[in-house]
C-alpha cells in the first residue's frame, strides 16, 4: 500500500473518454490493492446510473463493488469508519447535491478525526460524485458544491478537466491516506482524450497543468470549462494569445503555477462552474493579489454561476450555467 502518490510517466497512451478513464483508474487500483473497494447506490449490478462503474461488479464481485441502500449518511459514514480501520473505500455519491444528506459524517468525522486524535489515524477515503448543469436535471441534481469541500479544513478536493487528469488524479486520490473528494462533471463523461496506459501512472494532487501556453491573458479553469476555454483560445489565436490552465486540484491549490502564468500575462480570468460569491474564484484571485499584486495589469475576472440555483427550463439554465462565451466575454473585458 503506497502512501504518497508517485508520478510515473509513460510514453504509451490510449484514447479514452472521461467515463472510461475513471473506470480504468478504479479497476487498476482495485487490481493493485485488495483493500480498495467501491460502494454506492446502483454501482454494482446496474453499473452506476451514469454507467461509470460498468463491468466492475462482474470483475470484482459484490464484496468489493457494493450496492448500498439509499442511505448517504450511513454509507458515507461507513466509508469514514472503514477508512479509519484499514480499508480503502471509494464511495460514490450519485449526484453531488446528495452530499447534503451525508453532511455530518463529512464535516465532523471525516475531516476532523485525524486532527482530533492527534494524528493517530489515517483517513484513506475517496468520495466520487458528479456535479454541474446542462442536462435539464433541475436544482437538486445540477449543483456544483465543490467550494464547500475545498473550503472545509481537513478535506482535499480535485476537479479534473481532461480524461488524463481524471485517471491520474483518481488513482492518487485512492492511494492517498487523506480524504479526497473527486468531483466529476456530468457533461464531460463523453469527452475523450489521450490517457497514459501505464498502471503506475498517477498525477500529484496539488498540481495545476498548463494546457495551452499564451502571452496575453491566463484563463484558469476547472472541469468542463477547461475544454471550452481551450476552444476559445483556439478561436482567438492570432488575435489574442490565451494561456489555459487546468487547476485540477482545488485544495491543495497550486499557487506557483498560477502565479508564474500571471507574471507573464498580467491578466487572468477564473472560470469555474460553482456560484461566484465566496468561492473558488475568490480564493484564486486572492492568492494572485497576495503573491503577484505588482504583476497585475487589469482587474481579475470571474466566470461562474451568478449566485442562483440551476433552473430546469433551458433558456434559464443556459443563462446561469457558464460556458465558453462567458469566458470569451470575460477575456474581452481585460485585453
Amino acid at each position, binding site marked *: 500500500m503506497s502512501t504518497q502518490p508517485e508520478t510515473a510517466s509513460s510514453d504509451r497512451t490510449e484514447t479514452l473518454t472521461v467515463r472510461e478513464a475513471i473506470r480504468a483508474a478504479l479497476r487498476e487500483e482495485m487490481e493493485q490493492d485488495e483493500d480498495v473497494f467501491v460502494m454506492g447506490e446502483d454501482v454494482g449490478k446496474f453499473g452506476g446510473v451514469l454507467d461509470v462503474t460498468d463491468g466492475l461488479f462482474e470483475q470484482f464481485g459484490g464484496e468489493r463493488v457494493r450496492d448500498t441502500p439509499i442511505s448517504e*449518511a450511513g454509507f458515507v459514514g461507513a466509508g469514514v469508519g472503514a477508512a479509519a480501520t484499514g480499508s480503502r473505500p471509494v464511495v460514490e455519491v450519485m449526484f453531488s447535491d446528495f452530499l*447534503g444528506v451525508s453532511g455530518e459524517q463529512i464535516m465532523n468525522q471525516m475531516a476532523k478525526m485525524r486532527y482530533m486524535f492527534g494524528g493517530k489515524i489515517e483517513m484513506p477515503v475517496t468520495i466520487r460524485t458528479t456535479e454541474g448543469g446542462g442536462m435539464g436535471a433541475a436544482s437538486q441534481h445540477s449543483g456544483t458544491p465543490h467550494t464547500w469541500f475545498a473550503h472545509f479544513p481537513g478535506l482535499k478536493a480535485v476537479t479534473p478537466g481532461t480524461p488524463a487528469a481524471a485517471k491520474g488524479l483518481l488513482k492518487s486520490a485512492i492511494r492517498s491516506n487523506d480524504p479526497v473528494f473527486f468531483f466529476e462533471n456530468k457533461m464531460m463523461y463523453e469527452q475523450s482524450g489521450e490517457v497514459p496506459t501505464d498502471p503506475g501512472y498517477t498525477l500529484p494532487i496539488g498540481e495545476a497543468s498548463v494546457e495551452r501556453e499564451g502571452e496575453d491573458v491566463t484563463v484558469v479553469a476547472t472541469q468542463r470549462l477547461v475544454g471550452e476555454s481551450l476552444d476559445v483560445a483556439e478561436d482567438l489565436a492570432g488575435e489574442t494569445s490565451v494561456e489555459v490552465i487546468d487547476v485540477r486540484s482545488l485544495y491543495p491549490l497550486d499557487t506557483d503555477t498560477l502565479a508564474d502564468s500571471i507574471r507573464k500575462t498580467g491578466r487572468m480570468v477564473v472560470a469555474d462552474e460553482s456560484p461566484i460569491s465566496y468561492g473558488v474564484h475568490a480564493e484564486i484571485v486572492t492568492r494572485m493579489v497576495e503573491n503577484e499584486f505588482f504583476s497585475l495589469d487589469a482587474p481579475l475576472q470571474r466566470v461562474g454561476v451568478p449566485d442562483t440555483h440551476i433552473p430546469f427550463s433551458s433558456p434559464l439554465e443556459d443563462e446561469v450555467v457558464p460556458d465558453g462565451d462567458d469566458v470569451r466575454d470575460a477575456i474581452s473585458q481585460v485585453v
Partner: protein
Amino acid sequence: MSSISIEDTDGRREILRRMLTIREFDSTAGDLFADGEIPGFVHLYIGEEAVAVGACAALDEEDYITSTHRGHGHCIAKGLDPNRMMAELFGRRDGYCNGKGGSMHIADVEANMLGANGIVGAGPPLATGAALTSQFKGEDRIALAFLGDGAVAQGQVHEAINLAATWDLPAVFLVENNHFGEGTPADEQHNIENLSETAESYNIPGFTVDGMDVTAVNEAVAEARERARNGEGPTLIEADTYRYRGHFEGDPEPYRDEEDVKHWQERDPIDTFAERLIDRGDLTEAELEEMRSEIAAEIEAAVEYARDADLPDPSEAYDDMFGEPVPEIEEFASRLRADGAGGDSR
C-alpha cells in the same frame, strides 16, 4: 371531510377518472420524453395509480401532501391541473414552477401540495413540519408524506417519523413499496419483509395494504387521518404496488423480467376498479369508453397548451432567489440587460 367519497357513485367515478388521468398523462409524458420534447429526468407513476388516488381521495383539500421524484400521480390525485403540469414538464413560464422546477419539482402550495422532490427521503420531514404547523396553530388539517420503499432507508425519514410519533403530530407516512429503488430490489435494501413493521419501533400503528386496490388504500388512509385529527399521532402505511415502466424514462431495466411486469399487470389497479364499478352498476362499458376518450382529449389539450405556452425569458433565471432582493443578484441581472446575452462573467 374527505375530498372524494368512495361511498357514493360520483365519488367512485371520480376516483376512476383520476386514475385514468394519471395513466394517460404519464403515458403521454413518456412518449414526449422519448421524442425529445421533454428534457431532463422523468419518472412515471404508471401501475401505482391506486396509491395516490386512494390516499388523496381520503384527504380534505386543506390537508397537505409531500411527494417524491415520481410525483405526477400525486399531483393529479391532489387535483392539480394537467395543463400547468404539462407546461412545467415542457419548461414553460405557465408551468406550476414557471419552468424552474420541471417534472421532479412540481408544487402547488395553493392545493397544499408541497412539492415533488429530487431528494429521496426529503418529503417526510417536510410533512412532519406541516403537521407541526397544524398542531401549533390548532388547525384540523393533516399532512401525508408519500415515500418510496427505498426512501425508508434514509436517516431523515426515521427522524421525521420519530418526531411525529413523539409529538403526536397529525401526519401519515405512506410508503409506496414498488419493490425497487432504481435497479436494486427492496429486499437487498432492507432486512425486514414488510416495511410497515418499522411502525412498531415508533409505537405507532402500521399496516400493509394492497396498493393495487384503491379501496384498500382509501380505507387505510381515511382511518389514519381520523387518528391524526383526533390527536392520536401518525400512522405508517405501506402500499404494496409496482411500477410498470423503468425507474426513469430511458432505463434499460437489466434488473427485472418482462414477466414480472406482466404478472402485476394482471391485477391492474385501473382495470380491476373499472370492472368493479361496471359490475355494481356505477358505470356502463360505454360510459367507461367515453371517460377514456374525454381524458385522452384532455391530455392532448394539455400537450397543446404546453407547446403553445411561452418559454421563460432568460432574465427570469434571477427571480425568486429571495423574498427581499440582494444587490449581488441584481448586479448579475443588470449585466444581462447590458449585453443582452448570457453574461454572467465578472
